[in-house]
């Protein structure tokens, strides 16, 4: 299966910011709106994988990651099944972040269903 790749440090910024655009620069909301969601939509339409590489940044705040990935369900109305089918997160520097992101997705999905 072909894949599209995003490396946040290269394609977005090396110092990811807070949750919302109004809170400061390079927010999770901005990343989701301008890069993550458009690329994921492309991957879904072409039935391929979107690989997101988290390495190389100064560090991620919880809000940035939650808004970026949880927001795909909350704001962009995607389901966790579709996301898990087309999205692959990789990180060798902070491997626990992949697990955290999965947890944010599950949390957002469970709140959407309520």
């Amino acid at each position, binding site marked *: 299966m072909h894949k599209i790749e995003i490396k946040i440090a290269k394609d977005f910024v090396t110092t990811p910011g807070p*949750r919302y655009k109004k809170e400061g620069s390079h927010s999770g909301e901005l990343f989701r709106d301008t890069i993550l969601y458009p690329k994921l939509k492309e991957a879904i339409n072409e039935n391929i994988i979107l690989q997101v590489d988290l390495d190389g940044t100064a560090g991620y*705040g919880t809000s940035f990651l939650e808004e970026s990935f949880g927001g795909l369900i909350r704001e962009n109305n995607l389901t966790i099944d579709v996301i898990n089918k087309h999205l692959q997160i990789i990180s060798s520097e902070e491997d626990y972040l992949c697990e955290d992101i999965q947890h944010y997705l599950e949390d957002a999905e469970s709140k959407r269903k309520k």
Partner: protein
Amino acid sequence: MQNQKGKNKRVFGICLLAVALLGGIIIGKLIDFTYFKVEKTINLIDILSIIVTVLAAYFVTKILDKEKQDYRTEKDLIIKRTEDIYQLLEDSHGKVVTGLIKYQEAASHCKRINVSLSCIYRIMNNVNLNVDIALKKDVLDNTKKLRDLLTDTPKISEDQIQSSNLPSEVKDSFVHLTQNRILEIEAMYDKLRDNILLLQLDINKK
């Protein structure tokens, strides 16, 4: 200089051996041991046995001592690395309580703590230094809790932001925390300091 010292040591050793040998011969010739008999011949097997025992003692002591010394050095180096985490905690703690920390900086501090911890755990595995698994997990869990306390702002609308007393919010990229949240963060810093100290003690005991 070092070479000369080694040479002197060897000469001294040879002299000592010669003196001991001569002393033994003289004592054997001159002194009459009333209750003991001094043999004029030496069994070859006994000599071989003595030589093998001396060589074995020398090599075992030398090798075991070196291994012990290497292990001690490895433990000291790992403990030194955990002290760096202590320093990272101190640095970020100072900034958090003054309310002058940028969101990106807080996230960066958390990453550095996590990456340093992962590095230490990897090195400990490489040198077969097995510390308490529950303690290792506790340190990682508390680091994650600290990251959440510092960088997890609520998911709420603009209206809610205006009307609520939020535990933490970000304005112009700076993290603003309520007094309660600061207390929670301070408690987490204390827990992490304790965790690191316990980790150091556990490493030292191994």
